[in-house]
C-alpha cells in the first residue's frame, strides 16, 4: 500500500464519496424520473429529439386510456385479489405452522425443519414445466386460484423459516402461564404469541406482498385470458400489442410501481427486515 499522506487520503476518500453519491443517485433516480415524465408527456414531447427533460404540460390521457380502455382496472383487481389472498393465507398458515414447528411435537418434525430451506432454494423455472402440464390437465392453469396456490408454495417455506426463528427467541414462560390459566394452544397463539410477534408477522406479510405483486414467470406462463391477467402480465400484453405507445407503457409501469413504493415508504423498517431475513440467516 502506498504511504499516502493523511491529507491526500482524505481527499481521495472525499472524491470517492462525492462521485459515488452522484453516480448512484442519478442512475437510480433518473430511470424512475423518466418513467414519471414519459407517462405524462404529450405525443410531441414524448418522441421529441433531442428529448424533453421537463415537459411543458402534464397530460394524464395515458393513465385514463390504460385504466379504462386497456383493462388495467381489471388487472389491478386481479393483482389485488391474488396478492391479498397470498398474503393472508401465508401469514395465517405460516404463523400456525411456525408455532407448531417451534413449540409442538409431531412425527417428522425434524425432517420438516430441514426441508423448509431446501424447498425455498428451489428455483421456479425448474417447476414451471411440470406445473404447466399438471395444472393444464387439472384445469387449474388459467385461474387466479391456481396462481395463489403456486405463490403459496413459494412464500410458505420462507415464512415458516422466518417466523419459527422468531418464535424460538420468545420466552416460553408466558405461554406456559397462559396454558396454566386454562387457555388452550390456539388461544395462547392468538392472545400471546401473535401480539408478541407483530413485527415478524409484518415482515413476512410485506415480503409476501412484494413477491406476489411483482411475480412475472408463473403468471405469464399460466394465464391465457386477458380478464384474468395480473398487472405485470397486463403490462407485457400492452407492450406486445402497442409497441410504440410508450406513454401508455410508462403509465402502466407507474400503476404497478406506485402501490409497492407507497407500502415500502410506510413500512420501510419491516420491509427491510423481511428482505434480509427472508433470504439469509444471520
Amino acid at each position: 500500500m502506498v504511504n499516502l499522506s493523511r491529507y491526500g487520503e482524505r481527499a481521495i476518500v472525499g472524491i470517492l464519496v462525492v462521485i459515488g453519491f452522484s453516480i448512484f443517485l442519478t442512475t437510480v433516480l433518473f430511470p424512475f424520473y423518466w418513467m414519471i415524465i414519459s407517462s405524462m408527456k404529450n405525443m410531441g414531447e414524448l418522441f421529441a429529439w433531442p428529448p424533453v427533460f421537463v415537459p411543458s404540460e402534464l397530460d394524464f390521457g395515458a393513465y385514463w386510456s390504460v385504466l379504462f380502455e386497456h383493462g388495467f382496472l381489471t388487472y389491478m383487481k386481479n393483482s389485488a385479489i391474488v396478492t391479498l389472498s397470498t398474503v393472508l393465507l401465508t401469514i395465517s398458515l405460516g404463523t400456525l405452522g411456525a408455532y407448531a414447528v417451534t413449540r409442538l411435537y409431531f412425527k417428522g418434525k425434524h425432517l420438516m425443519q430441514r426441508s423448509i430451506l431446501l424447498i425455498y432454494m428451489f428455483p421456479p423455472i425448474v417447476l414451471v414445466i411440470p406445473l404447466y402440464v399438471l395444472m393444464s390437465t387439472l384445469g387449474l392453469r388459467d385461474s387466479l386460484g391456481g396462481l395463489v396456490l403456486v405463490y403459496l408454495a413459494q412464500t410458505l417455506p420462507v415464512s415458516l423459516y422466518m417466523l419459527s426463528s422468531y418464535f424460538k427467541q420468545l420466552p416460553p414462560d408466558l405461554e406456559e402461564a397462559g396454558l396454566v390459566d386454562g387457555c388452550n394452544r390456539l388461544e395462547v397463539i392468538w392472545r400471546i404469541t401473535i401480539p408478541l410477534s407483530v413485527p415478524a408477522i409484518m415482515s413476512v406479510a410485506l415480503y409476501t406482498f412484494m413477491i406476489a405483486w411483482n411475480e412475472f414467470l408463473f403468471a405469464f406462463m399460466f394465464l391465457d385470458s386477458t380478464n384474468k391477467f395480473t398487472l405485470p402480465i397486463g403490462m407485457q400484453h400492452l407492450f406486445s400489442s402497442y409497441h410504440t405507445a410508450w406513454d401508455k407503457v410508462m403509465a402502466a409501469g407507474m400503476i404497478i410501481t406506485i402501490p409497492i413504493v407507497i407500502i415500502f415508504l410506510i413500512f420501510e423498517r419491516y420491509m427491510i427486515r423481511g428482505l434480509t431475513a427472508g433470504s439469509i440467516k444471520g
Partner: protein
Amino acid sequence: MDDKSSKLRKGKGLNKKQREQRLALTIIIPIFLIVFGIVIFPVLYNFWLSVQEVTLGNLGQATPINALKWVFTLGNSGDLPKFVGLKNFITVAQDPRFLSAFATSLIYSISGVTLSILLGLYAALLVHRRMPARRAIRGIFLLPYIAPVVATAFIWRWVLNPVYGVGNWLAVQAGLIAEPVAWLSTRGLALFVAIIFQGWRYFPFIFLFVLARLQSIPEDLYEAARMDGASTFQQFFYVTLPQLKGVLATVFLLRFMWIFNKFGDIYLLNKGAAGTEVLPILVRQYSIEMEQFGQGAALSIYLFLILAVFIFFYFRWVMEEW
C-alpha cells in the same frame, strides 16, 4: 380401533401430549399438502415427463393419474403419452442452443453478480457514514429492487430505444457513441446491457446485507487499527474486508443461483434475442413455442442438476449448523 378413533374425534380422554400432537398435525397437513402438490410432486412428475413424448396434441393424456398408472404398471399401460427413454435428454444435449445458452447463462450470471456485489459494496460503504438524510438515501438505493421487474425492464427499454431513447441521446452527447445504437438487438451489446441491468437492479440486495454486516463490526477493531497507524484504506483492506468476506461469499452464491434460473429479467428486456438466450429462456421455448413438453422437462432436469451442485455448496459452506 372404534374406541380409539371416537376418542380421537372428540379429543377427550387424550393426554396433553396426544392433543398437542393432533393439533400440530392439523396445522401441518394443509401446509404439507400445498408444498407437496406444488413443489415435491411436480419435481417427481417432471422426471416422468422427461421420458415421454408430450406435445400439445397429447397434453391431455399427461395427467398425474396416468403418470401414476405408468409407474405402477411398469410402463405397460396403453393410452398414454409415448415412452421415449432418454431420447429427450439426448435431443436437448445435442441442440447447439443448449451449450451456447449454458455459456451465456454462466457469463451473464457471473459477471452480473460480480457487478452487483461491487456496486452493493460501494453503496453500503457510502451509506455507512454519519450523514444527513441517511434513511432517505437508503430508501432511494433500494428502489430498483423494490420496483416490479416489468416496470424497470420497460423503463430500460424505453431509455435505450434506438430511435427515441434518452439513453442514446445522452451517450451521443457524452461522446461515448457516434450515433444512436440498438442496444438490445445488437449481438454482444444486448448481453452487456442485460448484465448492467442486473447490476443496477440487484445491487440493493447486496447493499442491505453488507450494510447490516458493517454495522455489526466492533468499533474496537478500527480503534486498534488506528492505534497501529492504519490509514482509512488500510482499515478497509485489513479490517472491513476480512469481516465482510463471509457475507460476500454467501450473497454471491445466493444471487448466482437465483440469477442463473431467472427468466423474467432477460425475457422482458429482449426476449432472449441477440445473444442473450439463457437456459431459462430455452425452457420456455421448448415447451410453449416448440410444444415439446417432454424435452422442456428434460431441460429443466439439466438445470436442476446444475443447481443441485450450488445448493450443495450453499448448505455445506453457509448453513454450517443446518
